[in-house]
Structures are given as structure tokens and as C-alpha cells.
């Protein structure tokens, strides 16, 4: 395992709830995440698994109300950012930790030029003058493959893929140590997605950043990430290196995700969906949240919530089934 000093990000037992009229939405229920320097962690899960909430917690941007960080610690290079002042936190946002959001169509302010939107962040964090900042904005645009002249244009003059490049430019303008990308390519077409992923990989390597890639697409994880954490109902059910999780899958839910995917090279392999639906986060089932959909569930699963336990250095899985000796998943072909 990594020692504390190697980690850029170390999240311990994070709990985030949303207090709504209908009840408490248990969005994140005790998550541990470690990201070493210059590593890329993929966070995978379906709608409502708590991916975005986790990401926003790292920037302390959970909308409050209704969201509350109920507990846990988030160490950014050794400092617990849940304990610092809002003023200090603002210095971290955009400078040390930057974020790329899902929808490029709505994530840029329509009434400011793209140049101004990039310049704003460098001006704020690096104390540059207005003209220096605008020059930097142009350079940053070039870096993501957009001619600097276009910095005086407005977002509506850019196509979807170009807008996402602008968003990447804003995020990278101050050379952040950690980049959080929340489904950065979901809204894009396949060929444009390929361009954006290629660009992000390239810049990450060049700038030596750490990255968290949030996605529902296992293919993207395989292409971009070193490590992966699988989220279900606000908990990590399996984590490890991409090889460990993809090649020796241990959790029944991860198995279900893989089995749900059509295999592109084998047309004959029938998909095997996970039965049932995601649980309502207001009324999570007792015990393991996955047990109502799990083909291997037994008594204990309905009563006790499984903790993440490690098989080897890095491969963790939260599942009771491994109490039974000789348990093995039946992964499709």
C-alpha cells in the first residue's frame, strides 16, 4: 500500500447526505479513496451511486442546503480540507484541484468570451495582470488545440467538442495537482469522445497531474486509468488496479456490470443483466445494499454491511460471500 506521503488525495470514511422533504438521501455512505501522485483513479458506478457527490465533496461544492458532509476526512497533500476556512478553500479550487464537468453545453457562461473565462482563473490564482492573463488564456487554448485567436469568441460559437476543450483549458490553466473529470465525454459523440480522451491523457502525462476520472463507462476506465473504484449505493464495493478489477473481478456487482456489456468481438455471447433496480437512496436496504439483486446473497448479507477487505496489497472487495471458503464468481465467457 501507499504511504501517506505519496498520496495527493486521501479520503477517509466520507459520508454525505442530502436532507430533503421526503427524507434523507444517503448519497455517500463511508467512502475511502487514495490517489497517489501522478496516478489516475477511475470511479465507476451507475446513476445515483454517489460519484458526482464524491467529486463535489473534494472541492467542497456540495450544494448546502440540502447537502451536508456528515463525516469523514479529505486530506489533500496531508491537509484535511474539511477543516480549513472557506477562504483558504477558494485558493485550492481551480489552483490545486480543478474539475471538468459533464455537459460542455451548459458548463460555460454564455455571456463571457472563452478567453475571459480562462483568464479569470489565472488572474485570480497567479496574480497576473489582465493582459498577461489574456495572453496565458490564448496559450492554454493552443494547448488544447484551439487557435488563440478564438479566445475573443463566445461559447455559442463553438461546437460541443470544442466547448469541452475550452472547459479542459479552464481546468488546466493553473496547472492543478489534481484534476477531477466528472463524465467528461458522456455528452459527446464517439469520435469526438476519442479526441477528448486522447487530449486529456496526453496533457495529464505532460503536466504530471493526478486525476480522478468519474464515469459509467468501463471502457474509458480501461483506456485512461491506473486504479479503479466501483461505487454502488454510496459505497465502494470493489477497488484495486485496473488489471485486478477487470481481470480478476471479485464483487458480484462488478461482475454484473461486465456481464451487462455486449462483447464487441463476440456476437454470440448473450448479455446477462443484473436483475432489479438501484435501491432508493432514501431507503437503503439493510445489510449489503446490493443483496436484493445479488445471486449469491445469503443470510448475513441482509443483516450486516460488508466492509472493504483486501486480497493482496491493493485489491479490496466488500462482500460477505468470501467468508465461505472456495467462493468464486461465475464470470461470463
Amino acid at each position, binding site marked *: 500500500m501507499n504511504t501517506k506521503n505519496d498520496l495527493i488525495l486521501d479520503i477517509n470514511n466520507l459520508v454525505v447526505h442530502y436532507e430533503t422533504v421526503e427524507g434523507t438521501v444517503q448519497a455517500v455512505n463511508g467512502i475511502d479513496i487514495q490517489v497517489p501522485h501522478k496516478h489516475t483513479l477511475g470511479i465507476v458506478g451507475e446513476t445515483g451511486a454517489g460519484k458526482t457527490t464524491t467529486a463535489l465533496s473534494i472541492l467542497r461544492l456540495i450544494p448546502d442546503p440540502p447537502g451536508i458532509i456528515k463525516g469523514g476526512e479529505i486530506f489533500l497533500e496531508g491537509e484535511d480540507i474539511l477543516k480549513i476556512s472557506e477562504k483558504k478553500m477558494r485558493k485550492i479550487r481551480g489552483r490545486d484541484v480543478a474539475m471538468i464537468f459533464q455537459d460542455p453545453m451548459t458548463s460555460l457562461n454564455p455571456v463571457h468570451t472563452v478567453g475571459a473565462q480562462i483568464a479569470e482563473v489565472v488572474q485570480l490564482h497567479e496574480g497576473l495582470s489582465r493582459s498577461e492573463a489574456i495572453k496565458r488564456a490564448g496559450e492554454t487554448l493552443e494547448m488544447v488545440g484551439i487557435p488563440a485567436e478564438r479566445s475573443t469568441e463566445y461559447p455559442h460559437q463553438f461546437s460541443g467538442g470544442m466547448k469541452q476543450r475550452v472547459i479542459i483549458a479552464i481546468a488546466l490553466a493553473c496547472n492543478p495537482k489534481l484534476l477531477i473529470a466528472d463524465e467528461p465525454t458522456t455528452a459527446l459523440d464517439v469520435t*469526438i*469522445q476519442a479526441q477528448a480522451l486522447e487530449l486529456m491523457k496526453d496533457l495529464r502525462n505532460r503536466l504530471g497531474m493526478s486525476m480522478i476520472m468519474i464515469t459509467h463507462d468501463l471502457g474509458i476506465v480501461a483506456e485512461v486509468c491506473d486504479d479503479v473504484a466501483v461505487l454502488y449505493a454510496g459505497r465502494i464495493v470493489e477497488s484495486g488496479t485496473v488489471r485486478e478489477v477487470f481481470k480478476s473481478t471479485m464483487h458480484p456487482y462488478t461482475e454484473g456490470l461486465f456481464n451487462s456489456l455486449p462483447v464487441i468481438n463476440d456476437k454470440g455471447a448473450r448479455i446477462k443483466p443484473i436483475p432489479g433496480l*438501484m435501491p432508493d437512496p432514501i431507503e437503503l436496504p439493510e445489510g449489503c445494499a446490493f443483496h436484493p439483486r445479488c445471486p449469491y446473497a445469503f443470510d448475513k448479507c441482509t443483516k450486516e454491511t460488508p466492509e472493504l477487505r483486501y486480497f493482496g496489497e491493493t485489491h479490496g472487495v466488500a462482500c460477505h460471500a468470501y467468508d465461505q471458503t472456495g467462493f468464486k464468481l461465475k464470470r461470463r465467457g
Partner: protein
Amino acid sequence: MAKEILRVNNLKKYFKTKRGLLHAVDGINFSIEEGKTLGLVGESGCGKSTTGRLILRLLEPTDGEVLYKGKNVTTANKKEMHELRKEMQIIFQDPFASLNPRKSIYELISEPLRWFKVYDNKAQTLKKVEKLMETVGLAQRLINSYPHELDGGRRQRIGVARALALEPKLIVCDEPVSALDVSIQAQILNLLEDLQKEMGLTYLFITHDLSVVNYFSDDIAVMYLGKLVEKAPSIELFKNPMHPYTQALLSAIPSIDIDNKKERILLKGEISSPINPPEECRFAKRCNYVQDICLKGQPELREVSPGHFLSCAVM
């Protein structure tokens, strides 16, 4: 052996816009055999959804014809069209928008039955609705629920049940799973597959997701800016993609196979505007193999090997 159920001849749809004529669908030809699935693949704005709507005549085509079992759909009169609606149905992409929020599940599913006066009494209609709900895997107790009370997967099941109500032969599936999560997507895909087997349905499966379309279709047609660029049996298309666009599209799918990393073909630029497109091949601006001949126009779709059609002057 199998007979043709749908044929599309030189189908065109142009929309008038402020900036000029938008060539949404620009002269496409294909046919589907009974009981088979044709996948229609392309990126946003390529005209695939418009094609689906033209086939059902939810839009009036600018030119060309749609033949359903030899009958011309595009010239059918009101009464003939009404009869044809029983045969051809559609499942929409967005299960939020395509269900009237003020109608209960019973009302939604029974609507076509009532409109076509399939049964003379309510008890029979109710029985049919219950049966349809069972068929698509909706619990009976939800019969009086409203769409907004349900999740996306269940809502899409309502959409499927409605499409099945009149026992059609052909169903246009317009991105039926792209709004859904992976595990729910798999449930709906399996449902559609089972239904096809049991009822002998024919599908036109419109999607942007290549892995889904490969799994689901017998044949695949690839669309780019209103034109078909390649069409082949899906196994052949995936093994031997010939059009530069198809090749790039296939290589762009993120693969979960971490041991066999493939070389990715990156395209330049983005999809160009479908408004007043120039005479040249629609893909010329982004193509890595573009030559002078490509600027003269887009070649017709021609058969390069049995069942494999291609529209490219270079390959």
C-alpha cells in the same frame, strides 16, 4: 427464404432553416427482411432519427418512398395510414418525454387499443393491458401509477408495451436504451431480443452505440450527414470495416479489453454542417484518405463483396 418487409428508396428529408436548406436525410436506400434487425448507426445530427420518423410517416419526406410489404407508406391516404399504424410501431429514446405525464400506465398502454377499438369492453382491454405488462416485465400493481413515479427502465418498458399493444410486425427502436444505465440497458436489450424471437418482430434499431448495435443487429448501416456510407452484415462490418468513417468509429469505442490495446484512428475536426452541404463527399473534410476524386461528389452505395455495400471512391 425470408421476405422483405420494408424497403426505403432514395428517401430524402430537407428542413427549411433560416440559414438554408438542412439536408437531414439525403437519398438513402435500404431494406429489411422479415424477422431481422437492421442497425442504423451514426453520430448526433446524422439523420438517423429523422429516417425512423420518415418510415412511420411522422414526418413527410421531401422525396423518395417507403414501402411496407410493397405498400407505399409515403402516399397512403388517411385511412390506409391508420391501418398501417397497426403494423409499424416506434419505441422512443426518451421515456420521460414520450409518455404523457398526466396519464396512468393503464391509460397509456390501453390508448392504442381504445383508439383502434380492438375490444368492445373494458374488461377485455384491461386483460390485454395486464398481459402486456406481464410481457414487458412490469408488476401489475403499477397499473395506476404515473410515469413520473417510475424510474427510466420501467418507463421504457411502458414504451415497449405500448408499441406492442397492436401486435405490430415492424418496430422502429429509436435509441431505446441510450438514456439508461448499463444494467438497465441490458435488461431492456434482452427484453427486446426475447420479444423478437417470440413474436417474429422486425426491428430497425437506431443507435449511436456500436457495441450495442453489433450485439443486437443482423445487418448494420452506417450513416454520416444524411447519407449511408456503408452497410454490411454486422459480423462482416466489425471484422472488415471498409469506409474510413466506419473504421474510425469502430476504433473510437473505448474497449474494456486491457490486454489488447488497439491503435486508435483519430479523425480531424467535427461533423460539418448539414445545411447546404457542398457537392463533395460528406466525409471529405475529416477523412484521412481524401483525394481529388472525393471532392467531385459522394459515390453511390455499391456492393463490394456479397452483402457488403460501400460508398467510398478511394477504398
